[in-house]
């Protein structure tokens, strides 16, 4: 039964990691627009040569979800 000494904390840690990942995603607004997330993946504006200026001047290639919170 000695195995429990590290298995139990490990199981809890995994669960807590999942919980914090969920709370973080919730706080960062990833559940605010579920339908939008599904269609935004089809958007081509992050491809090179899709008419966007070079990456150094354009913010279009960056993921938009992180910084632009309402």
């Amino acid at each position: 039964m000695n195995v429990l000494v590290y298995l139990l904390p490990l199981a809890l840690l995994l669960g807590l990691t999942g919980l914090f990942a969920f709370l973080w995603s919730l706080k960062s607004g990833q559940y605010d627009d579920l339908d939008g997330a599904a269609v935004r993946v089809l958007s081509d504006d992050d491809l090179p040569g899709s008419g966007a200026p070079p990456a150094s001047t354009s913010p279009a290639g960056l993921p938009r979800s992180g910084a632009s919170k309402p």
Partner: protein
Amino acid sequence: MAEAIDYSIFVARSEDGLAQMSLAVDGIDCAACIAEIEDGVKALPGVVRARLNYSTHRLTVAWREETSPDRVVSQLEALGYRAHPFAGRAEESEARHARWLLRCLGVAGFAAMNIMLLSVSVWSGNVTDITPETRDFFHWVSALIALPAAAYAGQPFFQSAFRAVRSGRLNMDVPITIGVTLALGMSVLETALSQPHAYFDSAIMLLFFLLAGRYLDHEARRRTRATAGNIAALRGEMAHRLGADGVPVLVPVQALQPGDTILVAPGERVAADGVIASGQSSIDESLVTGETLPRALKRGDAVYAGSLNGEGALHLTVTAGGENTLVDDVQRLLDGALAEKGAYVRLADRVARLYAPMVHLTALVSAIGWLLAGADLHHAVMIAVAVLIITCPCALALAVPAVQVTATGRLFRAGLLINAGDMLERLAAVDTVVFDKTGTLTLPEPALALPRGADRALVGLAGRLALSSRHPLARALAPRADGPAIEGVTEVSGQGVEAVVDGEAVRLGSLAFCGAALPADLPSGASLIALRRGARTLVLGVEQALRPDALEVVDALKARGLEVRILSGDREAAVVPVAQALGIAHWEAGLKPADKIAALDRLKADGRRVLMVGDGLNDAPALAAAAVSLSPATGAAVTQAHADAVFLGRRLAPVLAAVDGARVAARLMRQNLAIAVLYNVIAVPLAIAGFVTPLVAALAMSGSSILVTVNALRAARPGRKDEASDAAAPAGGDARTLEEAAA
């Protein structure tokens, strides 16, 4: 020509000091729209952020000083999207509440899974070789997870139960709170006493299931409200306010203050209640009173918001601004109707009132019974607590909300936005449907009635002339134009328009203006408009057209055993043709708002439960007085606010869908309650006999919860006439949300 609009009341400051505004955007239907709108708005100078929410069709824009809000709106218009800003403060607090519920759900899900991991080990250990020390250790770890998790995730229930008890009521959250608290308390005690059974998993699982139900319920209502908010915002009601310098500025109606002077152009809808300061005109008050014939107005007369101005420009002094645009006697009737209506006791609350005392009494009786039978105090109390845990109303608390969520989702797709949560229950019991005529059975905009053998060329010419007139009747005529608008049209105030075409004088307007004779073969309820070209005249009728499916819907309602009636504020001559066309035997015409309430009271006195469908301001008190009420989305704002649901589109079909959906929902609610009761009938004797172990409790409680939820999903099944695609969506949506919550 773009006119400057003062949107400043919608602009707020964001945390980083930028000006920020939310807009409802219409016409978004594809993935490409997102990039097009966001990039298009970001291209404006000074715009820092533009983020479109595809689920709610809202755009949030933040900008520095260089851009003004109306440039954002006109940019969207240039891109082909109609947009209007709105102030969504109430919705923001709802969104916060939804996130809070989701956080609670996440915590409960995490705790439930980890405790179950330990509980399953204990259950299998109990029948094999677990040592008491290991079991106690597992129970203590469970307690360590369960107690903080329950303290956090149980808050929605604890708070609601506390509020209910403090105001002397009982709701379903009271037994939930008692059950969870007792289960946790007893489990800690049992663990301390090194007993084999603890109920941490049951308590947390209960919270998890209930939170999932509550979150879905909240989301379904929030989605409907967001859509209703978009529709309200996109009406984009504006008014020309005269500034101190006499220059009119276009402002949103929300910005109007009593005492402001507004300019109402011919053919424009009146934005606020007011008194005419100068000018004269005739005004179409069909949205206010149901009367379809225009009323002549002069200086000093009162005008109500929602009326359609006729041929003359008016200056109005606003008497009540923004959202209080309600006529006094309508307001008085409305207050009376609301006071008299009395609180409808929801099915779930009725069950809770019956259920809570019964359960607690059963627990007490079984404890006393075991004591009398010679058991010791500890054992007797354990039995009582087991009874409380097993009866904890998991299935019962989910029975009604689960059906409401699925049924609301189905009706949402049928074009029905539900305001009141208990509307489905009330609607299912309805036996009489009362329709208003103008704008409800008929379309809100008038249609053209041609006399037999009308000359097509003359009708086309009338249409071309109508393009230059802003008179309400001309709007019905304009689509018949057979060419571009005629140049050099002069408007003769109060009479009509005239022009010269191919050397011939042409006039469009009143019969007298054109010197036309009253025709014999036009419908009696129609408003008349005449055309004169040289010596020839043509008289056209403009009348209210029935909604395209009105006849089928009325027939279908009758086939379902409902009696259909009309209560209209319009003249008898206008009501009779509609009643005859639809085969409605019971109708009353020329009713004032008070008469409508009196008519509803008579129906109520006969023991009838009435569904009232109406759109006008004059219907608002009647809607509040009826058992259930529906209003088309084109109705007056006040009327929609008092309707239990609002329906979209030109068709009347959502009314039928509502009745059908409500009947299915009510049947499923009763079935679910029966399942919950049956579960208790089986489980409670087991608990009283002392056979309930934590394993049995966990199986019984989750089993019954899943059973009622699956049964509730049947409410989303399409009826005979619905599209087949209806069925999959809500089930998929619910499952998705649950998976995310459990992540």
